[in-house]
């Protein structure tokens, strides 16, 4: 059972406006992925697309990142902290663990389908963007649970 309710910044005009933009992006993603699947493509097409999107962003934004702390500093933007209620769960010499407590994409998808298994699948495909970001600088992203697969948070572990 998906639990994905905002707990912070409710009624904040700026955060709501950015959440709306994320939800819009989530609907574009949903309709494009569903169109591909309906036309007979495997979900891998979306995974490949998001991975390449991540590689692009990784090269653009993360190419100077050397340490987990630097990764965390770049990853935890104002938008991630507020819109996604994101926080740094841990930074060690080898890894950075990010936690996200609310996802506007999942919120958008829930208005389009009740199929939670499908949402978990398209969420995991979407997370290939973060895998691609890590890959762009030779790192890996280990996804340890998502809001879409019923956890109370998304846990992403970026490892050197």
């Amino acid at each position, binding site marked *: 059972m998906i639990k994905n309710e905002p707990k912070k910044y409710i009624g904040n005009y*700026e955060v709501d406006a950015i959440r*709306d933009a994320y939800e819009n992006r989530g609907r574009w*993603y949903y*309709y494009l992925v569903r*169109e591909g699947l309906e036309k007979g493509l495997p979900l891998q097409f*979306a995974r490949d697309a998001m991975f390449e999107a991540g590689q692009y962003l990784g090269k653009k934004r993360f190419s100077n990142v050397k340490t987990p702390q630097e990764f965390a500093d770049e990853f935890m933007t104002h938008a991630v902290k507020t819109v996604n209620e994101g926080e740094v769960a841990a930074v060690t010499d080898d890894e950075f663990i990010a936690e996200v407590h609310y996802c506007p994409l999942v919120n958008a998808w829930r208005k389009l389908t009740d199929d939670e298994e499908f949402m978990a699948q398209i969420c995991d495909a979407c997370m290939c963007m973060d895998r691609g970001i890590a890959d762009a600088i030779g790192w890996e992203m280990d996804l340890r649970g998502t809001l879409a697969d019923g956890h109370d948070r998304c846990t992403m572990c970026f490892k050197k």
Partner: protein
Amino acid sequence: MIKNKTTIQDKLSKEIRTANETRGLWYYMLVKHAGKYGLDEEEFARGAIRKLGNLYRKNYPDTDSISQFMGAFMNDQTVKQFHAELVSLTDDEAIVHFHYCPMCGAWTNLTDDEKKISMICDCAMDVDRGVFDLYEHIGFKLVRAIGAGDDVCELHFVKK
């Protein structure tokens, strides 16, 4: 030669612009990879985005009045994201110019192929055409597009 320069730089508009540019990145990559997996890119994109436009009909009022429709269309975020300007308004027609497109802002960083940008831009505008599929007495025409190399996107809203 595509000309697309933003002039609105307040903090919230920039955050939302980043979200919209990322939407453009995802859309571009999903279309590209649907093509790599054997689908016709244009047919795939139009299929998805037209249906999304149909969904977005519910965001607008039930009306036959062009001026009432424009009141809903020209909202704060559309004005700021697209640098939108209501150029003229009569009972029979409204003309709007977009002076900037955040999605096109993403695409020009991803490819130099302006023919391709023009194609995916026109497919993306199916989100608007899809809205007007479901209006009995208001129609929509895209007359010029930044993605096609024009100075502005020119949108006509007409009585039908």
